[in-house]
């Protein structure tokens, strides 16, 4: 299957921040969640993907087009919305729809009408009277109605109320029906992306900490609770991601869990009380902490 996004060895240096050797691949038909704290480099990565910024080095390919040179050809099939994007506040949604339509021959007017109803948006009200949630939904309408092959959404759920957020995810889920359409969406919050994403990329401090299928994350990580006497040095042999001890109670977070690990823990003189699966959020935090530990 063809890759819709292919970033290879991307570097971009700013004064106080740098993207460091970013490699990212999104196969066609998949949804990828890009997770990172604010300032991790999500927006910079996405801007490079849209040809808005040129990387210092590396290659960018979107839907088979080299960016930034072939950005027009790529953007013809990409629906992009970012958190810092605003519509013209004195114009209404109808004006925006007509304007965008002029650039996309494949604009689907029926779908646009359906979305207007579903999102309960008034097409003749000036944008400045819209709430934040309505603005986000209006932007989403403007890009979904072009039926793009690839959606790139930078922090689409930030600042949305729970209802608007759920409506937004519902429309994204609809894209799953078509195996030729793909989505990359970023969030500082794992909850927003984990439900729909096939794969997750953790971005931190300008570099990728991990990028793999969501099931891989969930299968590999376990929080093992044990009791007994042991030393952190001895446990280090197991290559745990994170170890915490209080008295004789131990919490060992493993990022390479296999059943045989439990035997090894017992061999260190610990009794395994329980083995807990971890949520993606816990995994994200543990990954970031692990990275910080090795850095300093």
């Amino acid at each position, binding site marked *: 299957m063809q890759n819709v996004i292919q970033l290879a060895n991307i570097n971009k240096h700013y004064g106080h921040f740098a993207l460091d050797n970013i490699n990212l691949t999104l196969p066609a038909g998949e949804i990828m969640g890009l997770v990172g704290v604010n300032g991790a480099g999500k927006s910079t990565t996405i*801007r490079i993907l849209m040809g808005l910024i040129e990387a210092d080095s590396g290659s960018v390919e979107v839907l088979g087009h080299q960016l930034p040179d072939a*950005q*027009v*050809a790529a953007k013809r099939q990409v629906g*992009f919305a970012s958190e810092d994007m*605003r519509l013209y506040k004195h114009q209404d949604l109808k004006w925006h729809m007509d304007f965008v339509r002029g*650039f996309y021959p494949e604009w689907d007017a029926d779908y646009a009408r359906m979305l207007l109803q579903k999102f309960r948006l008034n097409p003749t009200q000036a944008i400045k009277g819209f709430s934040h949630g309505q603005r986000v939904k209006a932007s989403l309408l403007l890009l979904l109605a072009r039926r793009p092959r690839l959606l790139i959404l930078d922090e689409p759920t930030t600042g949305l109320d729970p209802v608007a957020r759920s409506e937004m995810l519902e429309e994204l889920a609809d894209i799953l029906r078509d195996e030729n359409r793909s989505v990359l969406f970023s969030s500082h919050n794992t909850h927003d992306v984990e439900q729909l994403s096939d794969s997750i990329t953790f971005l931190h401090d300008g570099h990728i900490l991990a990028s793999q299928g969501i099931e891989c994350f969930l299968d590999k990580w376990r929080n093992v609770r044990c009791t007994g006497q042991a030393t952190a040095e001895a446990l280090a042999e197991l290559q745990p991601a994170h170890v915490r001890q209080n008295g004789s109670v131990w919490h060992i977070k493993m990022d390479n869990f296999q059943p045989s690990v439990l035997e090894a823990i017992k061999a260190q003189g610990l009794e395994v009380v329980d083995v807990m699966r971890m949520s993606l959020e816990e995994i994200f935090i543990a990954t970031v902490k692990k990275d910080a530990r090795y850095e300093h």
Partner: protein
Amino acid sequence: MNINVNTVKQLVIKDWQLHRKMIAGYVAAGILGLALLGYPHLWTFYMGCIILLTVMIAAGFHAITATIIAEKKDQTTAFILSLPVQPAEYVLAKAVANMGIFFAAWAFIVISMIFLVMTTHIPNGNLPFFLLICLFLVMSYCIVLSIALITESEGWSIFAMVLLNLLLNPVIMLAANNPVYYSHFKTDTIVWHSLFLTSATLMLAMALAVITFALIRQTRRRTFI
């Protein structure tokens, strides 16, 4: 570099649609100024002059603020950039939309003024002086537009506007106190003195040069940010 003319056209029309009220306002103010100019009183004549000057200055600077600076400030740029548009087309469209607004107001006023001067009691000898001021405004506008296109910065653009506006008064005083111009203020003979021709050519050349420089520099960009 392939410029898609249709894309540029759509972007230009967009800017004109967004600002049609502003354009209509300046045209209305221009008509008011011209009406006063044609009225046979000295004070209405001066009043008309001031209004026309103000309209020409304001139309240009307002267009720059509204189409270039405001797009940046209101974060609508990202919306346009998400469309299949390349940097060169965007810059070109901005320049065309802007100059369209300014020159529409400017040309309307200049043509009406020439007509007015030629057909009314206003001595025709004033024409070179009037045209000199109008051409100075074209140059100022082009300089500010180039700075706005290149820097996209509100600060720099305002700085340039203020500076060029401060220059306007000395230019008027200098010209008004020069016999090449003032000796014909009360006569009906139009004298195209070489001083006028040279300064007009220089100002137009300057305007053309800065705009060309800004366009070449900005359309070469491969990315927006």
